[in-house]
């Protein structure tokens, strides 16, 4: 179908975008970044924003910056408009290569060339790879609003299905990964490659944490995670049409084991290579 009528605004800066969101607050404005989820939802008319504030022409919002923290650890700052494809192709070093490797799970190539990291996190689909990675690696989301910038920990960011801690007049500026994860991996299962995952699992062997998508309305982080059986058995799952709870539980068990094995294999490759 075709999207419903909206008024288009092209923001020239983040401040401009924040101003437009505040000014139009009563008329359901929506930010437009890569649009790979939003425009599909608008075509279905599941979303009918009265105003679209296009931030794709705002300079400086795309790009990956690597720096070194006070303690000598690598810090990665990914601009909100950075595409999945740009992350996939980037050399992020062994500390953050898990992010590049995980991108192959994000939709398909033509989606990854347009879809953005900030947009994916703001959209907050419970199985989205970026939401899972942010939670697993304790990333911080930097958002700018009328009062300036603030940082929100990924653990406090996702509140429910498509619901985040962002205020209606805030814009995500960048995502900060400041804990290197050389021994981490993300994997998932979908009926067809590129579809939304039925279950997704990520593991970081250094922290012992596991994250699961598709088992609740937000990414589920398990710190000091036990065996795959223990993790899967502790999940609160219900039978859903076409997806019995036992099937989802089985997937969680398998994918946690697989993510851990991939994370361990990655380390071996690096040390051999």
């Amino acid at each position, binding site marked *: *179908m*075709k*999207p*419903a*009528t*909206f*008024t*288009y605004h092209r923001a020239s800066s983040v401040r401009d975008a924040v101003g437009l969101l505040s000014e139009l607050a009563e008329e359901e404005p929506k930010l*437009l970044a890569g*649009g*790979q989820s939003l*425009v*599909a939802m608008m*075509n*279905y008319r599941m979303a009918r924003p009265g105003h*679209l504030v*296009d931030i*794709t*022409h705002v300079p400086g919002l795309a790009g990956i910056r690597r720096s070194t923290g006070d303690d000598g650890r690598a810090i990665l700052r990914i601009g909100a408009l950075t595409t999945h*494809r740009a992350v996939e192709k980037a050399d992020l070093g062994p500390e953050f290569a898990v992010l590049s490797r995980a991108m*192959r799970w994000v939709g*398909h*190539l*033509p*989606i990854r*060339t*347009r879809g953005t990291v900030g947009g994916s996190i703001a959209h907050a689909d419970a199985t989205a790879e970026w939401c899972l990675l942010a939670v697993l690696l304790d990333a911080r989301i930097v958002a700018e609003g009328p009062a300036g910038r603030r940082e929100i920990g990924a653990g406090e960011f996702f509140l429910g299905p498509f619901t985040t801690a962002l205020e209606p007049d805030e814009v995500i500026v960048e995502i900060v990964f400041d804990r290197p994860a050389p021994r981490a991996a993300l994997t998932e299962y979908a009926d*067809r*490659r*590129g579809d939304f995952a039925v279950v997704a699992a990520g593991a970081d062997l250094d922290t012992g944490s596991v994250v699961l998508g598709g088992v609740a309305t937000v990414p589920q982080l398990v710190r000091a995670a036990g065996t795959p059986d223990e993790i899967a058995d502790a999940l609160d799952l219900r039978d859903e049409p076409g997806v019995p709870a036992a099937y989802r539980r089985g997937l969680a068990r398998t994918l946690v084991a697989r993510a851990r094995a991939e994370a361990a294999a990655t380390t071996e490759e690096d040390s051999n290579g």
Partner: protein
Amino acid sequence: MTDVALVELHVNGERHDLAIPPRRTLADVLRHDLGLTGTHVGCEHGICGACTVLVDGAPARACLLFAIQVENAEIRTVESLADPDGGLSDLQQCFSEHHGLQCGFCTPGFLMLAEGYLAEEPEATREEIREVVASNLCRCTGYQTITDAIDDCASRRRAALQAALDTAPEPTAGSTA
């Protein structure tokens, strides 16, 4: 309320000045405003890939972009592949030789997907090509012949490049590091 916006689009090397509603997708603008009906529209929600075009060289779903978003970009559609006299491009020729199409509805999308991908990854393996081919839907071929066509095109381009390098004059001493 803005009903119509002035939009400057660059498609296949030509500039177009259009007065269009902002809600018009790139796919619809290409077809209805510019008459470039080679770009097909299937699902209109980013799944089928029939509308795939190149935006600044990268394959993208034209149904998931508003034309007004891509004002400053170079757009390429399937119409840009063949010679002006109608001669097929090497990629199109490979699709023809390998029977990479039957009904042809999905073909423009697959061609632009492959055109963008091979430009970026000329060394792509058959496995990698298979994964990229999974981006779009084809209900006739079963995908094998599409993979064959793209794989063969990539091989021929590599061979042509190698031949060009082999016949190029030797660089003079001191010109290389």
